[in-house]
Every structure is written in C-alpha cells, then in structure tokens.
C-alpha cells in the first residue's frame, strides 16, 4: 500500500498541509513539538479511524477552530482510494465523520481500507505493562484486518457495558436480562477468542523466527494467548461451551461482587523466553527485543494475510533504541513498501530515504 497524497486542514498544529510522500522510506526530522507525531497520527487515523495518542478527540482540532480534516489518496491493490476523516467540535462533544471516495460512510466501512502498523515509544511497555495494552494491541491489529472482528468487538463491548450496569444497579438484576446479555457475550466473545487465538499463533511463529535471527537462536521467544476462558480446541462449539460453563460457574460471584468476571475482556497475552515469562523475569533489554520482534511479526502477519504491505509508522522509536536494535528492526521489516519515521536527528545508516524537515508545522524536503 502507498499513501500518495496527504492533506491536513486545522489538524493539531497544522493550519494547512499538502504532502506528497515518496514510496519507500520517508524520514521526518525536526526538533520536538514541531508536528512530527501529529503527522504520523494523521496518517494512522486514515487507517484506523482513531488517534494512537488520545481518546480526547477535541485535541485533534487546531486551537480556535471547529473542524479538523484529514484526507489522502492511497494506492491499494484494488486501485486508488480516497479517504477522508473530519473531526467536528459541537456543544455535545466531538463528532467524527468518515468518507471513502467522497461518499460518507460509517466507521465500520472506513476501517481497514488503508492498513497501518504503528510503533510508538509507549509500545516498548507492551511486555511489562498492564494486560489492557496487550488486548488493545490484538484488537487494533484484528479490527484493521477483519471487518467482522470490529463488529463482534463492538457488540461484545456494548453487551458488557449493559451487563455491568445491570450488576451494579440498585435492584436485584433481572435473571432473564442477564441471560440475554450473557448469550450475546458468548456469541460475540467466541468469535473474538477464535480470532485472537489464531493471530497469536501466527504472531508467535513469526516473532520467534525474527527473534532467533537476532539472537543467533540462543533464546527461544514464544507468545502465548492466555484467554480468561480456557479452552481445549480452538473451535466455535468448544469455546462457546467453555464460556457458557464458566459464566454459569461464576454467576453467583458476579452477582455478589457486582461486576463481570468472565470473558475475553479479561484476556491476556504472555511473552516468554525459553518458557519463562518475560514480564516477570526478563531484563529491560530482553523485553525491548521481544517487543521489536512482536512489531515485526505484526507487520509480517498483516502482509501475509492480506497480501499487501501495510504502511509502517515509527514515531520517535529509533532514538529509544540502540543503533544495533534499530538496524535490526528495519531489516526485519525489509519488505515495506512505504514507511514514515520521525526522529529528532538524522539517524545513521538510513540510506535511500526521502528526508523531510519539520519546523513549526512546515514540512519541506530537506
């Protein structure tokens, strides 16, 4: 995939920007707070429809304005596609609208036209951080790839919120209603678990290979899916059965503690080195290498499954890595069609890059 044009209007610190990125490597160099991350955020937004930095979408709109707009044209296998997203501030909160080829579409339809793999400094905490970070890593990879995944995820989250509200309510929860929400959770949750199980297997295989190449095979990296509802075989019936059984077993406890205890919203992913949990036993260096391998794997799996290379967005991560690791990462994703990298200094050893300088929201070829 290739982003051929990018147009920003009143987005973050950009008043107006017209950019024609090059194929291959685009390197954006500039001091801090000049708009480097904002540019990557905009590109990522065209892929995922969401910001990778904030849930406060009002922040996307330039100070003093009411509408931010981000649009671009991408070359994908199916042809050329024009993508647009506007964020509007209203008295009732912000509203986002999406368009594909000039036609207004819903989020679910917008998602995944342009695929991106994003790597930001916060991702370096992926191994040692809270499980929520690992779940959202899986969700964002899967939602870009499969429209049905996003649909099931939204359905699951809605039913989960309703069920929690029911459990937290003043009155004794209505048993029929609880059963209805549980049925939806099992239906949608089973699909989530199946998809997660599959992608984690693929990620594990791919990451292990990359990792072995880097470390000379001295240590073996393994990524394991740790579902909240354990299952024997990754088949729909088996998972749904196990899920329903665990819900029944913990029904009393859920009522007593007035909270939901069962389901993929409590899943986790465990990264292990030679069978030992990296989060618990790994050094910081080992954890970082594992995250790099995981990110390369995310890229490779997306490429392999869709047959199209996603855009690669690296926000200021090269400076967080020692030169050896940075080089290893870039050669790991060697097959990229287009990458966007931000840095405060021109990194060494990045040949054949189109270099852009960013200064106070002005982007110029350097």
């Amino acid at each position, binding site marked *: 995939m290739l982003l051929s044009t990018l147009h920003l209007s009143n987005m973050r610190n950009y008043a107006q920007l017209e950019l024609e990125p090059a194929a291959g490597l685009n390197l954006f160099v500039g001091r801090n707070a000049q708009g480097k991350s904002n540019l990557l955020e905009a590109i990522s937004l065209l892929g995922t429809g969401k910001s990778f930095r904030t849930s406060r979408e009002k922040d996307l709109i330039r100070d003093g304005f009411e509408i931010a707009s981000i649009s671009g044209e991408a070359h994908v296998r199916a042809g050329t596609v024009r993508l647009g997203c506007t964020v509007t501030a209203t008295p009732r909160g912000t509203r986002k609208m999406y368009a594909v080829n000039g036609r207004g579409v*819903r989020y679910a339809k917008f998602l995944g036209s342009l695929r991106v793999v994003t790597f930001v400094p916060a991702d370096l905490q992926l191994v040692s951080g809270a499980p929520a970070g690992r779940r959202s890593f899986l969700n964002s990879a899967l939602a870009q790839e499969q429209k049905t995944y996003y649909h099931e995820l939204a359905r699951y989250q809605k039913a989960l919120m309703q069920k929690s509200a029911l459990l937290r309510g003043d009155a004794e929860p209505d048993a029929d209603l609880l059963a209805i929400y549980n049925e939806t959770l099992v239906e949608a949750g089973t699909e989530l678990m199946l998809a997660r199980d599959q992608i984690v297997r693929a990620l594990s295989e791919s990451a292990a290979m990359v990792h072995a190449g880097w470390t000379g095979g001295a240590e073996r990296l393994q990524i394991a899916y740790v579902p909240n509802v354990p299952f024997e075989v990754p088949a729909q019936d088996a998972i749904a059965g196990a899920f329903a059984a665990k819900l029944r077993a913990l029904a009393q406890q859920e009522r007593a503690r007035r909270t939901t205890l069962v389901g993929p919203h409590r899943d986790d992913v465990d990264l292990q080195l030679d069978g030992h949990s990296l989060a618990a036993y790994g050094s910081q260096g080992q954890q970082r290498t594992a995250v790099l391998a995981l990110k390369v794997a995310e890229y490779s799996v997306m490429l392999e499954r869709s047959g199209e290379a996603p855009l690669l967005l690296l926000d200021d991560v090269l400076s967080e890595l020692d030169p050896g690791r940075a080089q290893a990462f870039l050669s790991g994703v060697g097959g990229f069609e287009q990458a966007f990298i931000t840095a405060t200094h021109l990194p060494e050893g990045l040949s054949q890059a189109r270099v852009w300088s960013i200064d106070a929201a002005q982007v110029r070829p350097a």
Partner: protein
Amino acid sequence: MPTSSGSIAGPVQALINEFSKLPTIGPKTAARLVFYLLNRPRNEAQSLAEAILAVKDRVRLCSICFSITEEDPCAICSDERRDARTLCVVAEAKDIFALERTSAYKGRYHVLGGVISPMDGIGPAQLRVKELVDRIGSEHPHEIVIATNPNAEGEATALYLSRLITPLGVSVTRLAYGLPIGGDLDYADEVTLAKAIEGRRAL
C-alpha cells in the same frame, strides 16, 4: 454570525438558547432560525407558538396502545377494520408513523416507551411491558411482531420480550434484516449482507 451573549438583545438570546436545546440543532442553526422568525409577520410566530402549545395541551397517550393521540382511544385502536389478532410492538410512537407509511401492516400496535438499557437506568419496569402482557391476556392476539431497532438495545429488548411472551402461547416474530431495495450488493456492509444471507428465503 453571533452565537454567544453580550451585544444581542435579551429575547433574541433567550430564543436562541431554547432552540439550541432541541435535538440536531446547534447554536448556529438556532441563531439562523431566530433571525428568520424576526423577519416574519407576527401571525406566523403566533401560529408556531400555538402549534407548540397545542402539542403539549391536546395530545395525550392512547390508553390502549400508548401511542400519541388527540382522541382516546386512538384512531388505530378504534378502527374496527384493523386486525386485532396481530400486535406490533414498537419502541416509540414515531415508529408507528414509519410503519403506517408503508400501508403494509394491518394490525394494531403497542408502544413500549423506549428500549431496555441498564446503562441508562431503563429496565423492563420502566417500559410498558406489564401493559403488553395484560393486553395479551385480554385481547388474545395470535401473533406479536417485534419491531424494535436492529441495534444492540433493540435486539436485547426483542429477546427479552420473546422470552416473556412465548410461554404465553403466542407466536412471536421479528422484523427481517436485509438489503435495502434498489441497493447494490457491492455497497452493502458485510454485516448486513451476512444477516441477509442468514435470513434468505425460498422463491
């Protein structure tokens, strides 16, 4: 266009504020409406004000189906030609207007007054569910058509009602999901298309 107070005359700002409270109307549209009205003759403003009050004063709920009406019972409930054996359950009275425009439905209605959503503090007790069960007991319909929206809350409400009503020996049906007429398969979203495949029927 000025949207906040300060230099604007008090009554103008007051009306802008009132209009802004209405759904889909923001401060800019509200200001536009107010300046439009300022330029119209007094009798137009008068009839608008009267129409608004009449809605509040003269419209009430039908004691049978809980739709909005001027006469109780409403025109549909008192129409002998309507099929009393079929009862269509809708969330809001406005859904009846949508269904009536089709002229395809000849039965009667029951308005729930919302959908089940514990997040918003709405459970079966906040809706006219008991009234529905009472009607089934006294009117003995053969079929209940559940016409709540095909979204999460509408679905949960439909499932809840189905669990409640089926044991009473009444057949419970749900509006079909499917493709828009005159549409293009290409443009249908995956989820709707998948539902349409599930709900396919013999020709």
